[in-house]
């Protein structure tokens, strides 16, 4: 394996417990590739921050090893790791000016004054805060503080930049704007970013790859499209993007595919994820935009009644009742024609290659 392919960071069997009984992070095996933008995504309490803090060195793993460039860093104190870090509340030092904040990592590294000045200026220029060096942090807007924090984390050419929900405190519009800037910055600098968020659209928009966490366990690491199209398990299917899920039991297993007898007395064919034997309880999952509304029954379709229609500009969201326990959501593009009337009888067609069956 050559250098370019070897991972920059490797978590190897890492687990972490704060209280000695519950695991905040369990059996984590994760590679961070050189130059990638990796996002840790998961619901609250799933262990994202814990993972990032172990990488930063502020938390010590209870077991396992973290490797940086092939060398173990599990016991390296945080100030010797040379990782840039951006905190959710920015953590700009209030008693220093913007310029001194950005210069801080350079003074620590005893960079000569003239070089320091030029690097600070360049870093502020990079985040488009050229004239702001003399201000104090409390004289900046939220987005500007965010950029100062970024400049400070980047100015000393860190080996990797860690960010824990850095955009969490910004309003939606500013957040989306900053996402674009972050992505642009990442492309220009080529530095490895590890980013934590619980906002899946942010994760999908920013990242080269996304690592999905739940309950301390890594669920799947993949690119945004594969995460969306080929979720590895029920949790990922439900957590990333909209999902229509139906419960049933395996009726017949074929190579790669399986037939499922749904609890609502219909049978659907779909791609079997993992392995399951006949009779096993499974979940059938499909993206709402893959379901087609039909007037007549088709192969691999089930009957339903239109319950509710929400108009969303580019598409309508149709909620259908399959039986009293089961509802299915369908996204129909406006271009696909007028939606059915509320209360109308309809048929939901599930294209077998987009139906995923989870054990």
């Amino acid at each position, binding site marked *: 394996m050559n250098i370019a392919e070897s991972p920059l960071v490797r978590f190897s069997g890492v687990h972490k417990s704060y209280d000695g009984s519950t695991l905040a992070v369990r059996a984590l095996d994760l590679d961070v590739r050189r130059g990638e933008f990796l996002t840790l995504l998961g619901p609250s309490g799933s262990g994202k921050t814990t993972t990032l803090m172990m990488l*930063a060195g*502020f938390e010590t793993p209870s077991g396992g090893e973290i490797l940086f460039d092939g060398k173990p860093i599990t016991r390296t*104190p*945080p*100030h010797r*790791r*040379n*990782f*840039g*870090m951006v*905190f*959710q*509340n920015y*953590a700009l*030092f*209030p*008693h220093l000016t913007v310029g001194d904040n950005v210069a*801080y*990592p350079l003074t*620590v*590294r005893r960079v000569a004054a003239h070089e320091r000045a030029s690097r600070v200026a360049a870093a502020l220029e990079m985040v488009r805060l050229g004239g702001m060096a003399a201000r*104090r942090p409390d004289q900046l807007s939220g987005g500007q503080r965010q950029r100062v924090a970024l400049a*400070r*984390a980047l100015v*000393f050419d860190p080996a990797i930049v*860690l960010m824990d929900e850095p955009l969490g405190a910004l309003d939606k519009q500013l957040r989306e704007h900053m996402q674009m800037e972050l992505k642009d910055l990442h492309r220009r600098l080529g530095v490895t970013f590890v980013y934590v968020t619980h906002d899946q659209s942010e994760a999908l928009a920013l990242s080269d790859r996304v690592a999905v966490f739940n309950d301390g366990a890594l669920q799947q690491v993949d690119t945004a499209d594969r995460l969306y199209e080929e979720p590895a398990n029920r949790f990922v299917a439900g957590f990333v993007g909209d999902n229509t899920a139906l419960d049933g039991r395996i009726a017949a297993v074929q190579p790669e595919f399986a037939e499922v007898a749904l609890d609502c007395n219909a049978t659907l064919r779909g791609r079997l994820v993992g392995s399951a034997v006949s009779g096993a309880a499974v979940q059938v999952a499909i993206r709402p935009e893959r379901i087609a509304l039909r007037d007549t029954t088709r192969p691999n379709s089930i009957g339903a009644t239109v319950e509710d229609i929400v108009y969303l500009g580019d598409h309508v969201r149709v909620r259908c009742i399959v039986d009293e326990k089961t509802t299915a959501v369908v996204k129909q593009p406006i271009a696909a024609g007028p939606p059915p009337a509320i209360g109308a009888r309809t048929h939901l067609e599930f294209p077998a290659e987009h139906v995923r069956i989870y054990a």
Partner: protein
Amino acid sequence: MTAADAGIENMRSALRRDARRRTAAALLLTLPLLAFLLFTFIVPIGALLLRAVDNPEIARALPGTIAALRGWDRESRPPAAAYAAIVADLQALREQSDAGTLARRLNTEVGGARSLVMNTWRALPLPATTDAAQVHAQLIGIDPRWDEPWIWQAIAKNGSRLTPDYLLAAVDLRRTVEGSVESVDADRSAFRRILMRTFSIAAIVTVLCLLLAYPLAWWLSTMTARRANALLIVVLVPFWTSILVRMAAWIVLLQSGGIVNQSLAAAGLIDRPLALLFNRTGVVIAMVHILLPFMVLPLYSVMKGIPRDYVRAAVSLGSHPLAAFVRVYVPQTYAGVAAGSLLVFILGIGYYVTPALLGGPEDQMLSYSVAQYANVHLDWGMACALGGVLLTATLLLYAIYRRLARMEPALA
């Protein structure tokens, strides 16, 4: 003026109006408090400062004499009219207590004045005469000291209702007979030394409180709010016990056979008991104990508001944790350090009971002298002047604090 300028001018005046309205509202809301402060604080302090320069006794008792002495060079013999005037003035004093007040006041200026004045007053009235030389002879007949200049100098010097003498004396200065200001003799100077001692004890106590409180407050600030509150109550216990009880407790603890000395001896650390009582050590220990909460509370409240992320951020940027603490955390606590130190120092320079009970004669602070003049010598002028010096020192410190706070917003 362009339209834009006019617009800006309009906006400015609107802002000013707005500011005025807010000031008025604030004034209205605080009016009851201001009234309360006026009667409980400003008026008494004003009275105290007046007392420090008030000098009514001589001017009230001897108006004629003072008029007669006006223009006297204070070295040659007093003008003949002065003898007649003093006889008239003294005769006009009906009550013995009036004469006594005058005599006591003059005696604080020059020793021997009391007996001179009282003897003369008792010998009055004199047989009537209009001849100045005869009046002089009669006066000398009562007491020959009327021929000496000092009594006349003392009267002439205090002819005015207001005097700077008390304030000058409070900082070991005095007016000479001619009216110029000079330092008192080194062997008689006391207040400057006491003032310096007061400041140095307060400074030592402040520094010790800071050294003890800073780590404690930091430790408290790292805890959950519940535990921190529980421990804060322990810190605050001194607030709830009477100061005399605490002093008595310290006497028990610190005496040569007390727990502290016994434990030290038992641990083999000392073979003779340490002198911890009735000296500077005892005063400082007890004052630190009493004043510690005033340092802990401001520090804790400031530290509680500093998120841990700051130090973490500094460490992630490459700072050693200790350097991060010093360079990033400590500066953010300056406001608490300044507020706590100011509070402890100002409270400290006013301490009276603690040094009086736990200190030796060389450990008494300025308040002790205030009490001495007020209670023992009944010299309110001197007591108020010393109080004024304390007040001035306090205000000066506060002004410095405000000036620093304006230069360094982190302190405000």
